[in-house]
């Protein structure tokens, strides 16, 4: 009886520990499945995108590291270029209500319009479910899922961890490189990097 109790609680504790707030999925493994609702109320399931490359971009419009890419229009250009090539680009905001950068669906639509987003959809994730599923830590934090459903890239948007737009020109954009590798049927040369930016405001 006592032993069972101890074993049971040990198992419970192990489970609790095995599911930390930011359990990152592994590159090369199938990307975690999800069904989410975008800012226009449409549902998107990862399963629906089989055969297409999917980019997940974590955003927070008030984060300086996000502004770094949106203010000079770099992120919008990246989104346009990708979606033109048939890539599904989901912009995700896991900011919790009351936290910096949190959006309601209406605010998300307004923001997309004002800043000229070219992503496929904007996913408000105020409960942080998608964020925690992917272990998103920073804004931006980028994930690329290959057409076969495996996670092909996870990490920073580029190799220059600053908040200064002037640094973009010299930086290597890991997402652009990963998309090029996937399009050419090559393995992704840099499949992981350390994400940088503001913390996701769960």
């Amino acid at each position, binding site marked *: *009886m*006592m032993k069972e*109790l*101890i074993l*049971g*609680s*040990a198992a*419970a*504790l192990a*489970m*609790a*520990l*095995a*599911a*930390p*707030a*930011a*359990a*990152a999925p*592994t590159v090369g493994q199938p990307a975690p499945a999800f069904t989410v*609702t975008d*800012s*226009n*109320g449409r549902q998107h399931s990862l399963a629906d995108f089989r055969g297409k490359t999917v980019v997940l971009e974590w955003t927070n419009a*008030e*984060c*300086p*590291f996000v502004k770094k890419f949106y203010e000079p229009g770099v992120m919008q250009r990246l989104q346009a270029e990708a979606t033109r090539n048939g890539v599904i680009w989901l912009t995700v905001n896991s900011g*919790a*209500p*009351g*936290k*910096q950068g*949190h959006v*309601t*669906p*209406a605010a998300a639509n307004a923001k997309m319009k004002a800043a000229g987003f070219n992503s496929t959809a904007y996913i*408000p994730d*105020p*409960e*942080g*479910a998608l964020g*925690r599923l992917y*272990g998103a*830590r*920073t804004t931006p934090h980028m994930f690329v899922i290959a057409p076969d459903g495996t996670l092909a890239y996870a990490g920073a948007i580029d190799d220059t*961890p*600053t*908040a*200064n737009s002037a640094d973009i020109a010299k930086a290597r954009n890991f997402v652009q490189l990963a998309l090029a590798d996937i399009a050419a049927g090559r393995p992704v040369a840099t499949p*992981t990097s*350390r*994400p*940088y*930016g*503001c*913390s*996701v*405001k*769960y």
Partner: protein
Amino acid sequence: MLGRWLVLLMALFATPVGATSVSQQPNTRVELLAESASPAPGAPLRVGVSMTARPGWHTYWQNPGDSGMETRAQWRLPEGASVSAFRYPVPSTYVVEGLMNHVYEGEAILLAEVQVPPDARGAFPLRLQLDWLVCDDRICVPESAVLELPLRIGTGAPDAAAKRRLDAAEAALPRPLATPLSFMKEAGRFRIAVPVAEAATVRAAHFFPLGDDVTALAAPQQASVAGDLLIIETDASSVPGVPETVEGVLRIERDSGVSGLAVIARPGAVPPAGTPLSGSGGSGGPAAPGFAAVFGLAVLGGLLLNLMPCVFPILSLKAMSLARAGGSESAAKRDALAYGAGAVLVCMALGAAVIALAAAGQGAGWAFQLQDPRVILLLMLLTLAIGLNFAGLFELQLSTGSIGEGLAARGGWQGSFWTGGLAAFVATPCTGPFMAGALGAALVLPPAPGLAVFAGLGFGLALPFLLIGFVPALRRRMPQPGPWMATFRRVLAIPMLLTAVALAWVLGRQAGADALALGLLAALAVALGLWWLGLRQARGRRALAPALFALVAALAAPAALARLPVPEARGDAPASAGLPEAVPFSPAALHELVAQGRPVFLYFTADWCVTCKVNERGALSRPEVAAAFRQAGITVMVGDWTRPDPAIARFLAERQRAGIPLYLFYDSDGGVTELPQILTVGRLTEVAAGQQARGVQLATSGRARRDS
């Protein structure tokens, strides 16, 4: 005085103008320091960048953690000069929403060496473009500044103020370890062992890896000591593969301050975890700061115990008997000391048992003995007997018996000693305010000071009686003995018998209806025995036989109880009282709810915990509290510790608590608030209102999403 100010002013102005360059940004003050305003050619020049985030904000270490940014420096140096990378001070941890940040709060000085070329002449300006990130718990702001120090080549004479600050920064740097070290990263865990001087004095430690592929940064780290080795074990990074080398800084906290070791390790064998850090300093001695505070809390808690329904009658009767005795000064002192010794020794004995069981991993806490229904039954029969005695059913005489309450009624110091012990034992169901924190701390202290805290509890319990014994003025203020005392004693029987009823209820809930029936049968037998005893006493006859009968009944019943089948655990039905719609406590469920950002009100209770029950019947059961919680979407979670539960014991231990009640509120932002042990409706609804203010936005955004 004036002279000193003048000297100070002169010292300020004597510093070459601009020898330090300062920039005050909105959230950070940064300053470039050089050891000398006139560096010598061909020599290294020590420089430092001081960064001071404003209160509540932080700047970042080299490896900023799960988010954040390393400080970047772009130097513009005179021709031929070069500069080293920064050497960073020891960082600290800062966890927000499960994301680890490696930070500096307050001032941090990053050190570097500028190599001055041998042929340098004249002006030698240092220019630095600094970019850094400064954050509080909500937002991050990148800041930058250009700092400039217009040095001139000279003799290399040090600038006293700058040198002092740089020396202090240098002394606080992590010290490199010469010893080759090993680490293990396998099966999802990471372990490293680092030789540390006087490992036993380490109170807390954290390993900060430089790389991303070492540890899961936000996972809790278990620090333990095995001989001279400090062993850190934690979850491994989800980045696969075993790195060839692991570099990082081990932060070590002692009572004497914080230090750091710069560590480089290679894969290899690492000894298993040793003794967990005691969280206290000194090698066993009660030297830890906070010991005095903990001890003080224990004394205060013990003092308040005197007001508890189970203890008050014993104390007041004893005080009264002292007044009645009207005895000599020395007899009063002797009685008071004996009573104090009894209380202290029983508290220490219980404390020693708790410490021993806790050390053996049995998950014991204060009042642990009440998890055993036999103890409950014994206590119930004891309170019944005391109650009947107060009621005048029988009298205690020296010849009555030689144990338990019999001893307590003995005249002289022996009687006082046993009364003190009895008071301490009977007091255990009444965890009072201040006690929980003190006893929790006692469990994490080394055994000797831990026991001292329990002794403090007994001392506090005995304090009123000691005062009466030692302060004649107080004794004189005690009411004059008279016939009223007999009446008063009979009145005091009521709380005592009520305590017995409460214990009967606990017994029933703990061990089922059969056990309750057995207990009531034993109660009847004891009562009959004592009645018989009283009758014989009234006739002036010897009373050994009835006394023995009562005693046998009191001892046989708990023994028989052990033979009864224990009913199945009550499963997930929490105690009837308290908030409706409560879910049972489980660490996994709690973790999940918190991870989802759901607000949770978690409380622990047990049928034998009087304070818990008072709160449950009182503030917690009020409909307005339930309504406020429901409205704010707060999940109520109850841990019932009536019977032993290792999960609850471990949870309490992690929060450094020895006992219950414990009331915790996890808000939707992940913050945890501990509520006081005496709950009020106002405090609870306030918590709910605070949460609702956060939750309103959540609810509306959720609805809007469904509508659109």
